[in-house]
């Protein structure tokens, strides 16, 4: 749809449901890629602790080319995305999902605007934080600011992938600045190291996830190359076939015929190889990429958990200090009773916040524990299928090749007699 830079692909989303919350048993809507992104972001905000299913890459460059293969790969990935959400216990309840699946164009735009509004306000917060940060940095000595900068970079790198899943949206930047903010207060409060969970199992999980991504990326790289190699072999078989046919012209039959047939067979095999290349791409490389994206989604959730934990800690610290202050005021100056009262009210508020933060954090932890198990099981199934398809594709190809060549032998036998 649209032309040139404005062009985009729209996808038809068909829903069949018996959930009572939905308007009807069936609905068909038209959505584009950015709509899916919106849904993913909303879910990510609302359901912290859950591994949100991953989306295919944004690919700003390839988008313009819109090859049939690219569109097909994306469609497949989007299909999987929506279905995974629909199958997830928590996520399927989401109102945003309902909006996505049912709303007509106008309503969807409005919903997007609503969430954009919220983001707009957080942008304001962001400028506030930026201001704070600037102040802080001008006040501190080099060492601190360098630490902050380095950490900022590390965190950013961990998030912004070349695949473009983590775009520099305000929400993302918020994450970064939240982290910085907590770091700032840490440093101010005299702590060098930010608060981290000390759960050894959780540490192990984090290590596992990070290393897993590296391994998977390498495997996917080779899978991608393998697809290319299949195409190249196909091309060379085509060239070879032509050359052999040419040779056949120089010879008299039956040898000349044998050459021609060999050439023809070679061309047929070339087609088989191109087909297998496509099959490999869709059924082996794509699942691998999906796995990688899923791992990145897990990483995002890990980051969320870290934030929640830190917020929790900060608030606990803040409450502690506030209480100290309050008691100090109470003890020392009775005329400052008004202030003490004020402090007391603040403590109450803080405590309420603290309780909320703790609740949030614990919810994330609980969800994650369930999610991890589900994640592993799902991945085993997905990869198992991918392996099966890979092996089957290769076996079929090899058998096809063997059969094609062997069928030429009788004719050759005739030549030698």
């Amino acid at each position, binding site marked *: 749809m649209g032309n040139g830079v404005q062009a985009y692909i729209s996808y038809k989303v068909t829903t069949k449901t018996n959930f009572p919350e939905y308007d009807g048993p069936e609905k068909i809507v038209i959505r584009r890629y950015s709509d899916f992104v919106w849904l993913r972001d909303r879910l990510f905000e609302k359901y912290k602790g859950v591994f949100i299913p991953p989306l295919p890459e944004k690919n700003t460059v390839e988008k313009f080319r819109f090859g049939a293969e690219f569109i097909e790969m994306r469609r497949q990935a989007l299909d999987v995305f929506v279905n995974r959400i629909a199958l997830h216990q928590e996520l399927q309840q989401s109102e945003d999902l309902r909006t996505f699946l049912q709303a007509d164009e106008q309503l969807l735009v409005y919903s997007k605007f609503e969430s954009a509004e919220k983001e707009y306000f957080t942008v304001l917060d962001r400028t506030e934080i930026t201001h704070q940060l600037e102040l802080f940095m001008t006040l501190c000595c080099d060492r601190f600011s360098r630490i902050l900068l380095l950490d900022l970079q590390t965190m950013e790198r961990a998030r912004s992938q070349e695949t473009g899943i983590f775009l520099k949206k305000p929400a993302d930047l918020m994450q970064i600045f939240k982290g910085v903010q907590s770091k700032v207060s840490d440093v101010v409060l005299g702590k060098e190291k930010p608060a981290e969970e000390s759960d050894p199992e959780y540490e192990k999980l984090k290590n596992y996830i990070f290393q897993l991504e590296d391994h998977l990326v390498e495997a996917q790289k080779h899978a991608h190359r393998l697809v290319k190699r299949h195409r*190249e072999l196909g091309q060379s078989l085509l*060239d070879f076939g032509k050359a052999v046919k040419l040779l056949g012209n120089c010879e008299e039959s039956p040898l000349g015929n044998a050459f021609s047939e060999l050439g023809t067979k070679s061309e047929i095999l070339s087609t088989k190889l191109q087909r297998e290349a496509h099959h490999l791409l869709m059924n082996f490389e794509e699942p691998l990429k999906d796995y990688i994206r899923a791992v990145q989604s897990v990483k995002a959730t890990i980051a969320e958990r870290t934030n929640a934990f830190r917020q929790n800690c900060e608030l606990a610290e803040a409450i502690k200090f506030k209480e100290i202050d309050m008691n100090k005021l109470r003890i020392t100056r009775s005329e400052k009773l008004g202030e003490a009262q004020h402090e007391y009210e603040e403590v109450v508020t803080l405590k309420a916040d603290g309780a909320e933060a703790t609740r949030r954090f614990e919810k994330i932890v609980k969800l994650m524990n369930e999610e991890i198990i589900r994640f592993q099981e799902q991945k085993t199934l997905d990869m*198992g299928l991918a392996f099966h398809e890979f092996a089957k594709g290769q076996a079929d190809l090899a058998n096809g090749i*063997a059969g094609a060549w062997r069928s030429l032998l009788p004719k050759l036998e005739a030549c030698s007699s």
Partner: protein
Amino acid sequence: MMGYENQGYEEAHLYASKEQMASIVLADDFSPPSDGSKSFPDDPLSSSQFVEIPTNDTDPLQPSPSKQTLNPSPSTIHSILDPPSYAEAVFRSFDFDSVDSGDMNGQDRSPLASPSSSSYYLKISVSDPQREQEQSASLVPGGSSYFTYLITTFTNMPEFSGTEFNVRRRFKDVVALSDRLAESYRGFFIPLRPDKSVVESQVMQKNEFVEQRRAALEKYLRRLAAHPVIRKSEELRAFLEASGKMTLVRTTDVASRMLDGATRLPKQLLGGKSLDGGTSDMSEVTQPAKSGRDLFRIFKELKQSVANDWGGAKPPIVEDDKEFLEKKAKLQDFEQQLINVSQQVISCSFIMYTPTRWGADGASAIWILLVMIYWYFMAIVGCYRFYVVGAESLVKAQQDIGETMGQLGLAFVKLTKFETEEAIYDSQRTCAADMKNVATAAVKASRLYRELNAQTVKHLDKLHEYLGMMLAVNNAFSDRSSAFLTVQTLLSDLSSLHSRIEKLEAASLKIFVGDSSRIRKIEELRETVRVTEDAKNCAIIEYERVKENNRNELERLDKERHDDFVNMLKGFIVNQAGYAEKMAIVWETVAEETSGYAKK
């Protein structure tokens, strides 16, 4: 043109990495190979154009190559088609093709070799290069040095005076041998001697160059020994047998064989118009008939262009992709022309055409014919070269896919190891087990691709040999054309002599008084005519002889080429099918093991 067969093969020692792969595949605990992840991509394979010929392959399916008869017996061919054991039979029956150039006992399977059905053998090997000083007194102070090679011969042929000989020869001697053979065996498809490569000898490292030359000489001599007629030649015998220094025989400049016909003229006719036998510039004498002059020029130009073109008959050693693609593009342009020309198959009978009468008219026809013959062979060469490019691209693609498959396998091996170590949940262990199967399969498949490629190279290489041989064919036909040129020269001389006689006779008729000088002149001319007639008849006989040699050789070549190509195709096909089936089995196992995951 002889050296190029050796250039592509680099004996890469892959045993280390093979063992590593074996230990990865077979070991249950994944003890990491010492530099496992690094060794595979740095495999010498990735840098060499051609893959190692596994002469010591420990793969159980490839038994150590036994030197069997050159032609597979019918039983081995039929066993190819038996399903269960045919894979074994396949690979065994093609081991006879593996030629170890350093092996004394191997017969070179050159295109000009006749099947060793005769019980006479002639085994030659070249070794032990030594530097020697120029002995003869020369004006140049500080005499130059050269290399000599030890030529060892074992034979039971009756033409030789013994069974074993050791002589030392230098390259100049080989050049002399080659030239003398060219003179004595006109019309034969004589294998080409190694290049003189004056430039290369300066540029290359001495050791490398000497070794390259040694190998090329050996190949050349073995090809000569394989030719059914030349192996019995006196020239070859003297070369192999005679101890002491070979006497250098002066040769005509063999490069301009077109003018060679002039040397056949009897001495009296040399020296232009006078009959005093004085030598003068031969090129003045050899004037083709006026009617054939244009054709002759075309022919000469064509021959020159062919020589230039075929001079580059070496298979292009691909430097990088870009160059490769350029070459391919060039050949693709050529393709359409080739298709047109090659479809006009000129049958052998054409080549055997002899004019019914040796007049000037017949001459033009023969020139046209010769042009057509050259064009035909050029088309064939073009087809061969096109094929070589296609074959090379296939080999490269096979090599690449094997490499990538192996890298993928290793990546999964690492993943498996990682998952196994870090496993907390059972599902992880299951996943790791699946991954392991896929990884081992990929590594196995990679190995199969490598082996397949090594065999493919051997089979498709046949064309390289034939490509080189086309130049020998060119020379043989060149002999014929120069023999014909001699005839035509004499024919034209005769016709001009006759016309001069006629003029003089006509003049003398008008004058009643006999002019003694004129009468004497006419007599002289008549004598010249007689001598020239004799020469012409000799030349015609010579032409016929060369033509007959051509014909016999062509028949022999056709038969051998036919057999060779059939075997080549069969070998290629059987090889491809065999390895494909092995790979299918590997993957089917994995597919079976993971069938539980299949979509219902």
